């Protein structure tokens, strides 16, 4: 990693940490101006992160040559980019309070990882692997967004049902907006994750031949895909909306997050970059 890249990454990390603190503070002292400022700080962080990744891309022979720092950074970058894109279109600034900590978490994890190690063995590298990785990351980032919106929906719903919207209720986005974000997250996330997974499966069939290995990450991803597919189906076909969808997507997300951590620390997997 070049020193310029390190500086850019440090700047991105600092911005993201500041934005996270700002968002959380805005929830705590209930001032929307702080959330507004945090959005701009996060946007600056996003810019620095983009530059870091571009710089890394220029210096490496190809996308898949990235170290684990870059994989985690791309996760953070995708979540931040999708959130910011949505943010500038809708007035849901406080969603940042739920998204920014995740971005920060990914960046901190990335900072803790060495970047020199080549994670994908050279014989596996190729456009299909890249496609698989990029689409899977984008799809999962959108699910994070859908779940964060779900968590906020649950809070706002509770406040409105108890007839006490108060200051917090005024600060949180409207139920309609949050439900729309949840809907969009699922609607975009699923079609991105699907070809991402197919790409991976096709590639694995070529490389490994034979049946799929019982890789925990593969099983985990398949479960994510099935459950989110189920949720999207219920949403579009059955008409599940609002609080049920919000709580289900949030709980699902928590379960997957926990199992991902268990896989990361307790199992051996070919997907060993996070």
């Amino acid at each position, binding site marked *: 990693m070049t020193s310029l890249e390190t500086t850019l990454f440090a700047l991105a990390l600092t911005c993201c940490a500041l934005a996270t603190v700002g968002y959380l503070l805005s929830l705590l002292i209930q001032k929307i101006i702080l959330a507004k400022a945090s959005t701009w700080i996060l946007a600056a962080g996003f810019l620095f992160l983009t530059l870091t990744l571009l710089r890394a891309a220029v210096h490496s022979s190809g996308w898949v040559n990235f170290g684990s720092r870059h994989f985690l950074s791309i996760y953070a970058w995708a979540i931040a980019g999708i959130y910011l894109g949505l943010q500038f279109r809708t007035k849901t600034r406080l969603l940042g309070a739920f998204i920014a900590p995740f971005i920060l978490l990914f960046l901190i994890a990335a900072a803790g990882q060495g970047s020199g190690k080549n994670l994908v063995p050279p014989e596996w590298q190729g456009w299909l692997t890249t496609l698989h990785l990029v689409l899977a990351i984008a799809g999962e980032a959108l699910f994070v967004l859908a779940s964060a919106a779900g968590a906020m929906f649950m809070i706002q719903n509770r406040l409105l049902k108890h*007839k006490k919207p108060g200051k917090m209720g005024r600060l949180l986005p*409207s139920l*309609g*907006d949050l439900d729309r974000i949840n809907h969009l997250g699922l609607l975009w996330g699923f079609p991105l994750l699907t070809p991402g997974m197919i790409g991976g499966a096709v590639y694995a069939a070529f490389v490994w031949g034979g049946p799929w290995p019982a890789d925990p990450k593969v099983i985990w991803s398949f479960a994510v895909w099935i459950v989110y597919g189920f949720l999207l189906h219920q949403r579009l076909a059955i008409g599940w909306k609002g609080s049920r969808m919000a709580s289900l997507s949030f709980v699902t997300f928590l379960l997957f997050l926990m199992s991902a951590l268990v896989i990361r620390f307790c199992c051996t997997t070919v997907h060993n970059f996070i």
Partner: protein
Amino acid sequence: MILLVGLNHKTAPLAVRERLFAGCREAVNLLGDLRAIDGVLEILHIATCNRVELVASVDETPRVMDALKSFLAKYGGLTHDEAASCLYAYRDEEAIKHLFRVTSSLDSLVMGEAQILGQVKEAYRQALAQNATGIALNRLMHRAFRTAKRVRTETGIAANPVSVSFAAVELAKKIFGTLAGKKTLIIGAGEMAELTCMHLIGNGAEDITVANRSAAQAETLAEKYHGRAIGLDALDEGLMDADIVISSTGAPTYVVTQEMVRRCLRKRKNRLLFLIDIAVPRDIDPKADGIENVYLYNIDNLQDLVDENIKNRRREALKAEQIVAEEVTQYLNWLKELEAVPTIVSLRTKVESIVRMEMSKAESWMSKLEKGDREKVDALVKGIVNKLLHAPVAVMKEESAEFNSQDIVAAARQLFRLDD
């Protein structure tokens, strides 16, 4: 000196306010007549349905105060007793504070309402157009607007609605985000339901449906909002389409039952539904609130929100009073400085006339100087004069801003014999 004379909703009954408001409005040249009063230097006239007030910069207080009071009494046709009980008069600090409180909506009937600032601005515009204001009032009004702006942005005094119908609109926004394109169903008819509906339309809600026992009444109301009318028997269908339902019938039993809501929600694919029940006895079964994605608020729930908001506004008003106090102090300091200005001006004039006189005496030998040397002498004299004057002028400004300007001004006038 600043004076404020007038009456408002706290001191005068509506009948008196009406009379004075009409009297002032009908006057052909109100500001002209006011300026004609001896001692009035600058004047401004604020008239709203809740208050009629005159703000003036004057050179003599008690007499002008009485003159302004009599003026208002005459225009409003106020009896002696009415004038005595309704009219108030404030001077200097009190007057400035009152004006700042009025402009910041701290003195309004509904504290924190936004109209008053616009009304005061309009009053100022009119006075400006007629050249009725000068340095003191111009500065005063700009300070007043600045105070109002600070109060609005730095406190939450105007943040939350304090009427039931507005509270309902705010809730609708919290549920749906935007009200554009949202469908509203009104069940029954009542003043409050209509008012709420009007506010909803004002915020973008469209497509009004009116359900009523009397078809004729439903038609009339529907026509008013360019909506459609349905009978109470078609309520199921109405509930299926609507996003917001306002109910206020006089029915003794529930008009909308839990089962009806449950049924319609299934058909509408669980779209969010906001039910506002402002009827007493209630129209909508409270159990409907237990259904997912249904938000039911009755009149008490809404009133509780309003009460909470009023309490918040009162709390915020304390912060606002602090801002007003700060701004009053700043304006007073400036005003005091202003009191020293005439003395400073006459001091300068006197010194300049001395310089002119002495220079003309020296004209006979100075005319022999080269042009460049002559300029140097002029610059030298100017420099000495400015340096000598700097200290007394600065001290007069500082002293009069911090303390009373009278003593220092009197001393300066005596020292330099400015009154000779």
